[in-house]
C-alpha cells in the first residue's frame, strides 16, 4: 500500500480532489437515489470485490488493476465525505442565526 501510495500519489490526489468536488456539490445537487435492492447488491459486490482483493485471487495485471481501482475508489469516497462535510459546515456558518 505504501509503495502504491508513493508510486501513484498523483492519481490518488486526483481521486481525492474529484471526491472533494463531488462531495461539495452533492450537498446542493441531490441526484436520484438508488433502490434498496440495488444498494444491497452494490454492498454485496463491494464486499466480494474487497474480499477478492485481500485474498489475492485475481492474478497478474487484473489483480493490480483491481487493487488500484479499490484504492482510488476508497480515496474518492473519502473525498466525497470530506467535501460534503465541508460544504455543510460552510453553509451552516454563513446561515443567519434563527
Amino acid at each position, binding site marked *: 500500500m505504501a509503495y502504491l501510495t508513493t508510486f501513484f500519489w498523483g492519481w490518488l490526489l486526483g481521486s481525492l480532489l474529484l471526491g472533494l468536488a463531488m462531495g461539495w456539490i452533492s450537498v446542493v445537487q441531490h*441526484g436520484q437515489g438508488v433502490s434498496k435492492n440495488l444498494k444491497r447488491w452494490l454492498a454485496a459486490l463491494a464486499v466480494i470485490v474487497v474480499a477478492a482483493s485481500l485474498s489475492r485471487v485475481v492474478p497478474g495485471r487484473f489483480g*493490480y488493476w483491481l487493487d488500484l481501482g479499490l484504492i482510488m475508489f476508497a480515496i474518492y469516497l473519502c473525498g466525497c465525505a470530506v467535501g460534503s462535510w465541508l460544504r455543510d459546515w460552510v453553509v451552516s456558518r454563513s446561515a443567519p442565526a434563527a
Partner: protein
Amino acid sequence: MVAGCDSAGHLWAIAAWTSTEPLEADLAQRSTAALKDTVLDKRRIAVAGRDVTFAAEAFSEDGRLSAVVSVEAVPGVRMVNDETRLVPEAKPFVWSAERDVVRVTLGGSSPLPSSKSKLMEAARAALGGVEVADRMNLARGAPQRFDNAALLLLDQIAKLKDGKITLSDNKVTLAGMTRELGGREAIAAALKNLPEGYSVAANEVKAPPYIFQAYKDPVAVTLTLTGYVPDNNVHAALVAAAGRKFFSEKVVDNLKASIGAPSGFAAAVVPALGALSRLSTGTLVVTDREVKLSGDALYEAAAAEIRADLGKEFPQNWQFKPEISVKPAAAPVDATVCQQLFADLLGKARIRFESGKADIVADSAGLLDRLIETALRCPNANIEVAGHTDSDGEEPANLALSEKRAQAVTDYLVKAGLPANRFSRSATAARSRLPAMIPTRARRRTAASISW
C-alpha cells in the same frame, strides 16, 4: 456523486492504462536488485501487475528459500510465483580439462558460477595465449576443496602437449604427453600437493622419449655425443668413459642435462659406449629404456659377442636391439706391416688391467678388437705377447703378474678366433717403453709382438 463515480472510473482506467508497464518495470528492477548478492543460475524474473514470477536454479535449499524471501520482501510485490529449484546434483561429480593441438577445453561440472569463472581465469593465465573453451555446467555435489584441486590440475594441463585430466569426485586421472622431458616427474611431484582427501587413480602421462645418441665417425675420427644426460655428474662420467674407450677419436660433447632419465641410465649407456667403441663405424641410440646399436664390427666374433652379451649387462627392463654387421676384411699384409700397425695402435693406447690383477678392463675392448683385426690381416705372422708391469713391488711377483697378463691377452685373442699356435708370451717386471711391435725373426720365420 454517482456522476462522480463515472469520473472516478475514467480516472482509474487512465491510471491503469498508463501505470501498468512502468510499475512492472520498476518491480522487475527492484527484484533483480534484491537478488544482487544471491548466487543463482538461470535466473528469470517476469512481472505481471504486482505479481512476480521468479524462476532460478539455486545451489542450496537455504539459498533458494533466501532468494524467494528476498523477492517477496521487495516493496510493491504482491505475490511471488515461485518457480525456483535446486541445481541438479552430479554423482559422481566429474570435472575435466582436455588439451589438444589448438585449445584447452574445460568440461564437466563446476559447483558455483564463481568457481567456473575462477577456473577459466586460472586456465587463461596458466596457458598464456592458448584458447580456453568453457564447456562446464553447474551442478551440486562437488567434493570439498574442489577449487583448490581443480586449480592445481589446471597447472598440470599447462605442462601437457596434449592429454586430459579428469577429476571424478576426489579421484584424479591423467593421460597425455608432456611438453618437455621431465614433465612427467614434475606433474607427479605437483600431484603430491593435492588437497587432503584427493588421490591419483591413474597417471598415464608420458614424456617425450629420453634420447641419448653417440655416433662414431671413422672419417672425421670423432665420437659425437648428443641428447640428454640426467645430471652433471653422469655427464662428466660418460664423457670420461668415452675418452677412455675411444682412444683415437676426439669426443665431441653436445650433451644437455635434463631430468626424466630412465633409471639405470648410466649403467646401460657406459657398456653400450664400450660396444660402440668396438665398432669400425656405428651409431648408438638410447631411447628411454631401449638401446639400439648399429654399425660394423671389426670381425665376426666381435659382432656375435656384442649381439649376445651387451644386453646382459643392462639393468632390468632395458632392451637391446643390435643391428651389427661385419666390416669387410681388409687386404692381407705381411708381418712387417702388421708390426707397424700394432705399433701405431699401441702408440695411441695401451691394454689396461685392473690394478695388481691380470683382468683386462672393459675400456680396452676397442683397442683389443683393433689389434685382433690387424692380426687377422697377417695370418702367417706369429705374434709375441709381451707383458710388463711397473717397477713397484717385488720383482718375482711382478714377473708372475706380467706372465698372467700376457696369458690373459693371449686368451682374449684366441677367443676372438686367432689360432693359439700363433702366439708366444714373454714377461718383464719393468714397464717397457719400447715400441709395441717387436719383430722376432730369429725365432720365427715372420713374427710380431704385442706388448704393454
